[in-house]
């Protein structure tokens, strides 16, 4: 019965990796429910399995749920867990038929071998079968949640004290040869609705195609890994192009990837130098809406700037007004009653205060304006595993203003730069000077950086092969002779199957000394008779090959000692050594 136990324990072991990944799934994603259902189905089927067919079904369910998980979680850790789950599910499947023939380890080895044998054909298909765009698109609902970080509501006035959170927000790896920008602005959310106090982010209507179909073969790649956040929008540089159908850019200039999720998202973008569409989109009415009358002093100030003819001149006038006032940057501004109080009385605050104040002021001065929140700067990490990457942390969160200037489109203005930054910890300064050399990095932080480095490397490697790169690759290989593609694919398919078959037949190294000895004897032309014991077989072999008689008899002795004698571990090792020596000598004399 022990083999049955092996087989079912293998199937049980495949469940923890699956459940672990399921927990990381986001409930709002449409695939989450079927995935959970499949994993639970496998669990209950395993509890209740009576016939061999049920056990095989469990393995199939496990493979299926791994496939669904793989569609949603693509990080390094998830991929490793998926591989483990596939291996264990296969081992479980093998276990039912090879009952009793192998140990736990043997099953794992055998399933690894099976996987290795199936891989060549799978890779040929993977490389040659043309990628299809999605057959239909689904309406993906937005999710709401409250994970620390950027919030859809920008309400700096209620925050008496801002704590800097060390948590990582996102990591980006650029294609080789690209230098990492140290002080770039990574936009995430656009807040265009102002109620006199808060700047609110409006969820974009679920209109796909803001960016159109992915464009092919332009620019270099950026690989992003974004930590779970409350928003669908992810950081980007404002000019890159999307590469997959589940990424799109809203008219306001937000990049949405998949669904807003509590799971880590990995994706690829393409850098470009072109001016993005959103920058040229004329302001809509909500972006022109004047602040409410509850801010009399602000409105009065704005009225002074209105006579100026262009938006650019009004901006310069406002800047010089700001610089003329004793504004100070502070993370502990205390409670502020309203923007009037901030602008004219308190004059102390952080980026949120400055951005909302400037945007309100510009709107009151009849210049379309909105607040953008995102990240600024970042920290370059040089992992042992290779390319450096830029890490954006929650403390790098920042807010700035975008103004519509005639003839220039939407332009970024960062009013926080206008304030004096005296008496502050260097780290808190908004315009962090890019790369900081941190002296005392805690060990866990260091390990985390290394892991993220690997994770990004995996992401950049594994995500980079999509429809576009497949076409590029085939173009490079076959050039104009694309009609040979089919022939090559078929031929390499056959080669792959033959290769897999060979892997299965050549690669098996039986572990038991008896099986190995029998294999050796078979090569000598000695096949066991019915009910023949091993020493007898060896004696018969010795009669057939008198020149090897002593070796054959010695092999029988050692094998019998190993199989039947009461041996201490040391003795066992000794006899195993002896036996291996004899086997190799016998093998050599063929």
């Amino acid at each position, binding site marked *: 019965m022990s083999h049955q136990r092996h087989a079912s324990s293998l199937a049980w072991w495949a469940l923890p990796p699956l459940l672990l990944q399921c927990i990381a799934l986001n409930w709002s994603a449409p*695939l989450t429910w079927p995935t959970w259902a499949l994993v639970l189905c496998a669990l209950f089927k395993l509890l209740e399995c009576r016939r*061999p*067919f049920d056990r*095989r*079904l469990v393995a*199939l369910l496990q*493979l*299926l749920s*791994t*496939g*669904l998980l*793989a*569609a*949603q979680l*693509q990080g390094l850790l998830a*991929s490793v867990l*998926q591989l483990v789950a*596939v291996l264990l599910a*296969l081992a479980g*499947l*093998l276990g039912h*038929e*090879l*009952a*009793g*023939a192998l140990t736990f380890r043997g099953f794992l080895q055998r399933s690894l071998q*099976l996987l290795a*044998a*199936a*891989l060549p*054909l*799978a890779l040929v*298909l*993977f490389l040659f*079968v043309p*990628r*299809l765009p*999605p*057959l*239909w698109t689904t309406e993906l609902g937005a999710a709401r949640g409250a994970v620390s970080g950027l919030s859809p509501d920008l309400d700096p006035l209620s925050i008496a004290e801002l704590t800097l959170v060390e948590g990582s927000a996102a990591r980006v790896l650029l294609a080789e040869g690209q230098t990492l920008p140290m002080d770039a602005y990574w936009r995430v959310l656009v807040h265009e609705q102002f109620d006199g106090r808060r700047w609110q982010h409006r969820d974009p209507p679920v209109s796909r195609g803001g960016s159109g179909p992915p464009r092919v073969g332009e620019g270099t790649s950026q690989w992003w890994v974004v930590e779970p956040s409350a928003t669908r929008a992810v950081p980007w540089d404002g000019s890159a192009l999307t590469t997959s159908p*589940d990424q799109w850019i809203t008219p306001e200039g937000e990049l949405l990837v998949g669904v807003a999720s509590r799971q880590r998202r990995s994706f690829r973008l393409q850098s470009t130098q072109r001016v993005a569409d959103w920058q040229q989109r004329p302001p809509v009415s909500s972006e022109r809406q004047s602040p409410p009358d509850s801010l009399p002093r602000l409105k009065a100030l704005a009225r002074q700037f209105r006579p100026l003819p262009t938006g650019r001149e009004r901006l310069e006038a406002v800047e010089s007004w700001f610089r003329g006032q004793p504004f100070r940057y502070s993370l502990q501004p205390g409670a502020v009653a309203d923007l009037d109080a901030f602008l004219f009385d308190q004059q102390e605050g952080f980026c949120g205060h400055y951005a909302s104040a400037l945007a309100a002021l510009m709107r009151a001065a009849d210049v379309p304006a909105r607040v953008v929140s995102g990240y600024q700067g970042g920290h370059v990490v040089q992992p042992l595993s290779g390319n450096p990457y830029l890490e954006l942390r929650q403390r790098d969160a920042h807010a700035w203003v975008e103004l519509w200037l005639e003839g220039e489109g939407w332009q970024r203005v960062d009013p926080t730069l206008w304030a004096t930054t005296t008496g502050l910890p260097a780290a808190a300064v908004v315009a962090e000077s890019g790369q900081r050399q941190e002296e005392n990095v805690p060990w866990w932080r260091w390990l985390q950086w290394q892991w993220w480095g690997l994770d990004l490397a995996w992401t950049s490697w*594994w*995500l980079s*092969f*999509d*429809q576009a790169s497949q076409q590029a690759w085939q173009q490079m290989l076959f050039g104009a002779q694309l009609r040979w593609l089919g022939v090559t694919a078929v031929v390499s398919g056959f080669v*792959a*199957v033959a290769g*897999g*078959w060979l892997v*299965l037949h050549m690669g098996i190294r039986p572990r038991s000394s008896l*099986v190995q000895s*029998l294999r050796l004897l*078979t090569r000598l032309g000695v*096949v*066991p*008779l*019915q*009910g*023949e014991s091993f020493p007898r077989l060896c004696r018969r072999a010795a009669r057939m090959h008198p020149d090897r008689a002593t070796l054959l008899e010695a092999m029988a002795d050692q094998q019998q000692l190993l199989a039947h004698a009461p041996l201490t571990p040391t003795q066992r090792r000794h006899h195993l050594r002896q036996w291996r020596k004899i086997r190799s000598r016998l093998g050599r004399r063929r």
Partner: protein
Amino acid sequence: MLHRTAKPFFKPSRPCAELKLGHRSLYIIPSRFGVLWIAAAGLLLLVAIQTGSNSTLLLAFVMLGLMVLAMFLTHDTLQGLTLRCAQPSPTFAGEPADYPVQLESSSARPRCSLRVQGHVVVECDRIAAGTTTLSLPWIAENRGWQLPPPVLIETIAPLGLFICWGRWQPQQPQLIWPRRRPGPVGETHPPRSRDGLEEWQDLRPVREGERPALVDWASVARGRPLQAKVFNDPEEPEVILAPASGVALEAAREHLADRIWRLHHSGACYGLQIRTITLAPSKGVRHRDACLEALATV
């Protein structure tokens, strides 16, 4: 023409002493699980296309690759296996008979199942390298030397994705005794008597030099003179069986078979007379088998 293509599946196989399974004698099709497997791979393919996920796509292709490999692996499980008849032992008609089959293989093979067509399946967990003997149960309806229906060997190992099977008509007939059915048989008792030692029946005066074991010491203790015991063997009944008169010969055979079996188990001494054959009274397994064989074949 259609007849010709369908032939390998339907023609009655010619009996042969041994069959080495190979391309010409093995058939293979995907199993129910294999069809499910393909469907699952197709579903994953669809998910991969919808989500653009490389991992899912690769997994779907790995599953397809395994399906293709499984075809070869399942075929290899049986290919090269030699089926051979062993010496079958006789059984009664209408009762489970064991037909011994030897499997000869140069290497160890995973699980397969064998059955005599239309009878119980025998699972063979693992075929060791060398020769393995299996008994396949079947039930013969008629007496005499009978050939069992064709033997089917079938496997889904190692992955359960394909079913591979072969068919073999063995050549070695099995001796089937007549059905056992209680009924009247003709009996004659030959005269027989013998002195023995089994039971003491009488006492006689002790002679000179008598063994002490013969002396009845109990009566000596009661003060009687020394007396020796006289022993005699109990009469052991002997019977010669023959078909009862007025019963059809086939029915009589069945009654005789039942009677012989029961007499053998009670340890009785019996002989048989049927048609031209007469077997002298005796006992033991060999005698029983000889009688039953005569019943089955004469």
